[in-house]
């Protein structure tokens, strides 16, 4: 990767300062709220808020470090995220003894290979490896033991998990290998833009929902999502995304459109991952991240947003 131009160094500095500012504000607000609130329910909410904020500091530090480290470290980080997400999702999806070896291949061969393709920038292979080769492999491998009970359901679950947790998520670091005319060396900002907008949209939907949420969108799937939170979060996260156009290869309006697409797909991803949880009868995918739940609970909104953003970027500016 070529050295970033001087202007981009300043961009990265500004973006970093922006994130630090947000974290500081969240930390201060959490501290003040902890002193102010009295009711039992509010205390629990604030405690959870502060726990989440502390986890955010860590997550931002790790993501920022990987981003600064370049394509290799970013691919490694997302490979670990995919591995953990796959682990969480397969853990709640019933499989049979016959799938044991299939799972071995998925965890220890498909995940690393996909991220090697992403890391070395072999875009063509990274785009077809899972939907074509790994798909066929998983379907075939699970037949080899001769156990046909629930075959389609079992294999469908595995392929779904593999697509969501590995293929879709890998589109985020794949942004680093996109060749955008006149934007060489700035791709890290694209990945930053995606992750910032999608996570900020989550946070803002939560905040708006807490402040003025009344009407639930999908009470059976995700009881905390409200229309007020959804509209407030989408609009404000889109505005932030649009305001960052200067750091991206997009024109201001284009940046707004990209941010809108990211927030909408982020919302959709959250609802879908929630439906899977409800189906399995669980509340969280795990407890890896204090206050947030499992890895999948944090990246649910990234699952659909990453591939859609990747292809929008390729289509419009690639």
């Amino acid at each position, binding site marked *: 990767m070529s050295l970033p131009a001087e202007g981009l160094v300043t961009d990265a500095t500004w973006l970093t300062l922006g994130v630090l500012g947000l974290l500081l504000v969240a930390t201060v607000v959490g501290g003040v709220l902890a002193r102010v609130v009295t009711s039992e329910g509010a205390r629990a909410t604030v405690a*959870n808020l502060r726990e989440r904020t502390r986890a955010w500091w860590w997550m931002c530090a790790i993501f920022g470090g990987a981003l600064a480290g370049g394509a290799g470290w970013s691919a490694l980080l997302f490979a670990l995220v995919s*591995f953990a997400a796959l*682990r*969480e999702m*397969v*853990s709640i999806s019933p*499989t049979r*003894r016959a799938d*044991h*070896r299939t*799972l*071995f291949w998925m*965890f220890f061969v498909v995940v690393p290979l996909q991220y090697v393709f992403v890391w070395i920038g072999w875009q063509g292979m990274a785009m077809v490896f899972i939907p074509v080769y790994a798909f066929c492999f998983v379907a075939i491998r699970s037949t080899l033991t001769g156990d046909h009970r629930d075959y389609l359901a079992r294999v469908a679950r595995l392929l779904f998990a593999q697509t969501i947790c590995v293929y879709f998520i890998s589109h985020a670091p794949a942004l680093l290998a996109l060749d955008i005319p006149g934007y060489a060396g700035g791709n890290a900002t694209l990945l930053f833009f995606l992750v910032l907008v999608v996570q900020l949209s989550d946070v803002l939907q*939560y905040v708006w929902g807490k402040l003025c949420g009344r009407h639930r969108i999908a009470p059976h799937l995700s*009881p*905390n999502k409200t229309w007020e939170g959804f509209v407030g979060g989408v609009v404000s996260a889109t505005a932030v995304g649009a305001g960052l156009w200067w750091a991206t290869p997009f024109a201001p309006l284009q940046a707004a459109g990209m941010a809108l697409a990211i927030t909408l797909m982020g919302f959709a991803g959250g609802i879908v991952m929630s439906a899977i949880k*409800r189906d399995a*009868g*669980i*509340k969280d995918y*795990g*407890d890896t991240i204090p206050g947030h739940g499992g890895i999948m609970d944090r990246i649910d909104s990234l699952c659909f947003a990453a591939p859609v953003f990747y292809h929008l970027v390729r289509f419009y500016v690639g």
Partner: protein
Amino acid sequence: MIAGLIRLVTGVRARWIGCEPLTTHQRIYFANHTSNLDLPVIWASLPDDLRARVRPIAAQDYWERGPLRRWLAHRVFRAVLIARSGITAANNPLTAMEAALADGASLVIFPEGTRNQDDELKPFKAGLWHLARKHPEIELVPVHLENLNRILPKGEVILIPLLAQVRFGAPIAVVEGEDKDRFLARARAAVAALAEIDELAPTEATP
């Protein structure tokens, strides 16, 4: 450190649903058995102070094979090894378990007696009944291990890194006038019931 490693590999979450992880009570934890990992995972999922007071009951024929297993069984898990076949008065499993209880240890036992590959629990062996009747003061805690049969099923050597879960239920005891079969059926049902718990049922609105 070994406990930490086991927790990392199996991602095990301990859920204390029917009781607290107290060191003040002497207990017998009885669990379903599907994998060779069951014993290490239950052991690793306990809090440190509790783990130091617990002795798992394990099969001699398996854990005495090879220096690594022997070291793990004796030095790490501090297991009470019992014979599964050729039982005589000299190697009666109950004698060893009684001795451990007399030392003040809590026990972990797998009353199915062997690793189960079916969805349904096997009938429980009588050891639990004998211990329960002789020591009514000891709490009998049902435990359900989830996903271990998928992480390392019987006959497999490759571990799949799925997330294990250990659920600890409410203690049971022999009730007045209960016979052996009734009690064992009830104990078995207590473990089976832990598998069916729906986390979403009690609290709907938490984020």
